[in-house]
């Protein structure tokens, strides 16, 4: 009852000094807002990473044609033009223990495709029927690529959802004939939706055709394979199987020990490492800014409160004269500090969310505003309020009433 009355009194008092109260809050508002933005972006990024790993497959290894290093970036796919993986490589990899699926594919990006008056560009993949198992992704409508399609070099295709939207906005594509480059293909199925590819691009902007058709009729690469997707039985074997694949390929490609790889392997562990190395530094930097703003905000609060203790000497003396105990004064000033920081925390949270929404809108970065962020904002505001409120409150509570009233 008494504390409730004191709290109401504190609110009223702060309300009477709106400008001072607001200035005290500014630091906390900035600090908490920054914190919220960072948390939301980090969580958004983590969600994206998880989605990518899931799309990539936690137990998949991608074998790329062509070597070279792309530091700090997820390697994009290798296209047909650099294909240097042979059938023998494929067979050798299949025989490694722990390898469950080996799915070779040809790939060409930015291929023009056309249906009647509609046209667009897309990525074309020439695949084996086991592509569906390797990517856990088949046809959502119609048929996927069949063994027969590959054996007979059939000119059939399965299209991604984006391609369907572009070329067949309101008609049923199944059975329709579209042009890939200058070759006619019959649509026999629509792919399941997937979203982002391992490289972060739209994985629904895709047309799938039989491997043999791609090699011989469309991409003119009858001898070599652009990429191989290897699925292992257990993610913990990723490292050892990657090493074995590497050894096989180096031997098959007759690479001397000082020569660099003419292929490249990627797995989910590497993807996580790459993304984190880029975003990690930025996040640490931003967290530092948030921490500093909170620290500065706290010091500002302490400063203004110390000044206000001197300014309000008469008030403190009077309160003591009419019966306030030292702990009542202590409580009053700590409550003032807490009300300031918690209000600042709430405002900061709101500003932070607005900031997140704006950033999402401007940069298209996904962000996740979580309950944890709200709890953290509250927690930090509370801690700042206590830490920087205690000193002025103690100073106020220790004033001698006779001195204070003079």
């Amino acid at each position, binding site marked *: 009852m008494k504390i409730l*009355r004191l709290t109401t009194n504190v609110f009223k008092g702060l309300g009477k000094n709106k400008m001072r109260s607001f200035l005290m809050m500014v630091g906390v508002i900035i600090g908490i807002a920054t914190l919220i933005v960072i948390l939301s972006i980090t969580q958004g990024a983590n969600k994206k990473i998880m989605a990518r790993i899931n799309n990539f497959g936690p137990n998949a290894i991608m074998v790329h044609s062509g070597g070279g290093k792309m530091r700090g970036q997820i390697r994009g796919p290798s296209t047909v033009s650099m294909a240097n993986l042979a059938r023998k490589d494929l067979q050798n990899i299949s025989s490694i223990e722990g390898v469950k699926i080996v799915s070779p594919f040809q790939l060409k990006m930015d291929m023009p495709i056309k249906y009647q008056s509609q046209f667009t560009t897309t990525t074309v993949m020439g695949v084996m029927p086991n592509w569906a198992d390797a990517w856990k992704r088949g046809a959502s409508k119609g048929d996927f690529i069949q063994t027969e399609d590959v054996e007979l070099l059939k000119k059939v295709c399965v299209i991604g959802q984006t391609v369907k939207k572009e070329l067949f906005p309101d008609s049923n594509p199944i059975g329709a004939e579209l042009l890939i480059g200058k070759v006619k293909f019959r649509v026999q199925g629509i792919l399941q939706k997937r979203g982002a590819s391992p490289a972060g691009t739209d994985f629904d902007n895709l047309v799938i055709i039989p491997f043999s058709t791609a090699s011989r009729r469309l991409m003119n690469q009858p001898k070599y394979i652009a990429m191989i997707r290897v699925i292992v039985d257990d993610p913990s074997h990723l490292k050892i199987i990657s090493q074995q694949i590497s050894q096989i390929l180096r031997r098959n490609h007759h690479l001397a020990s000082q020569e660099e790889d003419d292929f490249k392997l990627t797995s989910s562990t590497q993807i996580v490492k790459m993304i984190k190395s880029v975003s990690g530094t930025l996040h640490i930097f931003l967290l530092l800014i948030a921490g500093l703003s909170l620290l500065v905000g706290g010091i500002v609060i302490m400063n203004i409160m110390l000044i206000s203790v001197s300014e309000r000497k008469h008030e403190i003396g009077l309160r003591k004269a*009419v019966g306030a105990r030292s702990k009542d004064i202590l409580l009053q000033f700590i409550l003032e500090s807490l009300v300031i920081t918690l209000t600042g925390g709430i405002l900061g949270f709101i500003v932070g969310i607005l900031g997140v929404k704006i950033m999402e809108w401007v940069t298209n970065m996904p962000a996740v505003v979580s309950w944890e962020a709200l709890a953290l904002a509250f927690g930090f505001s509370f801690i700042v309020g206590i830490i920087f409120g205690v000193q002025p409150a103690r100073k106020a509570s220790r004033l001698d009433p006779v001195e204070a*009233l003079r």
Partner: protein
Amino acid sequence: MNKIIQAKDITQIYRKNGAVTVKALQDVSVDIEKGEFAAIMGASGSGKSTLMNILGCLARPTGGEYFLDGENVNQLSDDDLAKIRNRKIGFVFQLFHLLPRTDSLENVELPLLYSDRSDITKLAQKALEVVGLADRIHHYPAELSGGQQQRVAIARALVNNPEIILADEPTGNLDSRAGLEVISVFQQLHAEGKTVILVTHSREIAEHANRIILIKDGRITGDERAQNPLNARDELESLPEETEVAQ
């Protein structure tokens, strides 16, 4: 007789920089009975404010014993003293000490914040009625004249229904009319049975009390009882008509 205040050989020594000491009070003994209207009169620096601070439990004497309502104050903790100030004593100061940007009602409610009372607003309204400011409840101090501000302060002193009203130069910042108005409130409170102690440097003001305790250089030098103290209300009526100022 019921002695509400019993001070025995009160000594107050201030130490400045360790070596130099100032004897503000020396062996001051004074008894005040319940319902008395006493003035403590002395020049500035005489020790009268120091005495008031001790009687009001705002400070502890360095020597001597002080019994308030039969209780030995020397043995009480700071928190107990705060409780006594809250329940038994109402202060009125020369500088009013009203909280700025706070209306009369809230200013009067202040002591109740630290009590266990629940009917705060009602009590505060009643106290404001007693001092004749029922129509100024939501005025801010800046909107009130000096006399009115001091009456709000008196209402604040009254609100917890204390045994003793302690007033330190309550008319010091007021013109004579407003001063008399304030004194008349004290006389009215005295008539209603309250113990009123008025600290002042002015004999003119002190003569409104029924008893004048003279203090000089930290010692009590006289204790007079007035049979016919001045009546502030009568004096106000005899003052020439005046339009109210400072409104």
